[in-house]
């Protein structure tokens, strides 16, 4: 291990890529080849699975629905988390510590506990089967996380910045939007990344709160698997496509990702 330090990370990355390779491999095979023979790469290379996904509305609408609620959730979470995180990082107020912990407890609530009550709540307010319902439900765990991350980044900005701006004659909101927000742009990017991530990967609530009109792609996959038997090639192609948005988003935040995972506190 001492002589070849790159060996451990390389082996680990290989381990990470193997199941992904197997999925991609299968997505280019016909169902017959998958079930009939064991091949390490596709012998009858086919794009049919992808063509079907991009031409069949029940499939591609799943992607559109997922991306819609993820984006709504991301914007909503960041917009309300920004002032809250500022308050937590700069001021002391009645019940601040308890409030912060209460927010965090929502990150700890198992989705399985909330599935049924959420269904009743969102049906009662008439939002069932809309992207807004899923976006709102996901704020339960994304807002606390966004507040936590942003607070970490904001606490890293010295308070002198605020004071100098006031001396220079900025109003509070002028300072906040013209100076403070650009200063912590990296933190906002990281928080947005995390909101994207947790909203994109969550399925239990997304599936419970939708039926037809706003069905997320991940739910489309599970239903196809159970109704029309095993169309493994198609399933693999759909799975492969769910990895793409994540990969694109990671690429954009690659330089901040490590700091982001430490919630801006290192």
């Amino acid at each position, binding site marked *: 291990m001492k002589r070849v330090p790159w060996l451990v990370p390389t082996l680990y990355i290989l381990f990470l890529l193997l199941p992904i390779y197997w999925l991609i491999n299968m997505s280019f095979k016909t169902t017959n080849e*998958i079930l009939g023979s064991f091949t390490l790469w596709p012998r009858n290379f086919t794009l049919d699975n992808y063509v079907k996904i991009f031409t069949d509305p029940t499939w591609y609408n799943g992607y559109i629905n997922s991306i819609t609620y993820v984006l709504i959730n991301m914007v909503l979470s960041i917009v309300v988390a920004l002032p809250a995180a500022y308050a937590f990082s700069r001021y002391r107020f009645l019940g601040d510590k308890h409030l912060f912990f209460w927010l965090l407890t929502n990150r700890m609530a198992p989705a399985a506990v909330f599935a049924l009550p959420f269904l009743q709540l969102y049906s009662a307010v008439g939002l069932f089967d809309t992207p807004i319902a899923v976006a709102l439900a996901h704020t*339960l765990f994304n807002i606390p996380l966004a507040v936590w991350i942003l607070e970490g980044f904001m606490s890293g900005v010295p308070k002198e910045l605020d004071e100098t701006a006031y001396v220079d004659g900025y109003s509070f909101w002028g300072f906040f939007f013209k100076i403070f927000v650009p200063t912590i742009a990296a933190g906002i990017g990281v928080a947005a990344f995390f909101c994207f991530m947790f909203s*994109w*990967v969550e399925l239990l609530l997304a599936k419970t709160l939708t039926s037809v009109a706003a069905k997320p792609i991940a739910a489309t996959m599970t239903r196809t698997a159970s109704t029309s038997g095993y169309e493994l090639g198609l399933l*693999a192609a759909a799975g492969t496509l769910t990895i793409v948005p994540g990969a694109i*988003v990671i690429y954009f935040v690659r330089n901040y990702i490590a700091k982001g995972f430490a919630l801006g506190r290192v």
Partner: protein
Amino acid sequence: MNKTVNQKAWFFVLPVVLLVAFNAIIPLMTVVNFSVQETFGDNMFFWAGVRWFEQVLQSERFHAALGRQILFTAIVLLIEIPLGLAIALTMPRKGPWVSVCLVLMALPLLIPWNVVGAMWNIFALPDIGLLGRLINGLGIEYNYTRQIFSAWFTMVLMDVWHWTSLVVLLCYAGLVSIPDAYYQAAKVDGARPWAVFRYIQLPKLKYVLTIAILLRFMDSFMIYTEAVVLTGGGPGNATTFLSIDLQKIALGQFDLGPAGAMSIIYFLIILFFSWLFYTLMMKDEAR
């Protein structure tokens, strides 16, 4: 940072409080309502007191699911934390490979959880999956849909695959924040690699390791989607963890009373441990 007292700061946190309260308090009260009432359908509810709580706490089914849950969480924590730390220590700190490593390692974290389950379901199948073929090819009988040990092995391996990167990224962030001067000082003193790790790296990693343990504890204790897609709780009940059992009771059997009581007990367990970690963490941050 020294903070000024300002009660108007409440206006800044109000939107967050309102949104989260709408999502947290109303559903939580619904669960509390279920847990103390009896229903015979038609939306007729009768007071049931703490009967459901007694029933859940005494049921062997709950004990078994809780036991499996604790065992699973303990196993994945014991593997993922040291492994993640080891990988972070051997990762390059500078150069073009850093970004490549980070992007590839973060990949599993952004795959929808049911796709993770489906991917491993296929990957580990004994007839058409690479892993299943490989293990059977070595002469070891392996079939995760039939054998309890194989099912657990696959489940743990999947979780390690899915989440070790989180620990790696956290530890890595902690490591790159250590100034070079520390290492140089250690070199001058002739410190051995173990001493460098024990007295320079580990203290700096304390905070990120706490977050890693906290997040991994919470998420592995709440595991649902991946496990359902991979094994569906089987074979038998061998991999029926708390969330899966809860869903079976709530949505499968529609026993709302016991499901509500179980939800609250479940939530309190997580809350207790998280409070414990949080208190330790904040004490550490106050330094």
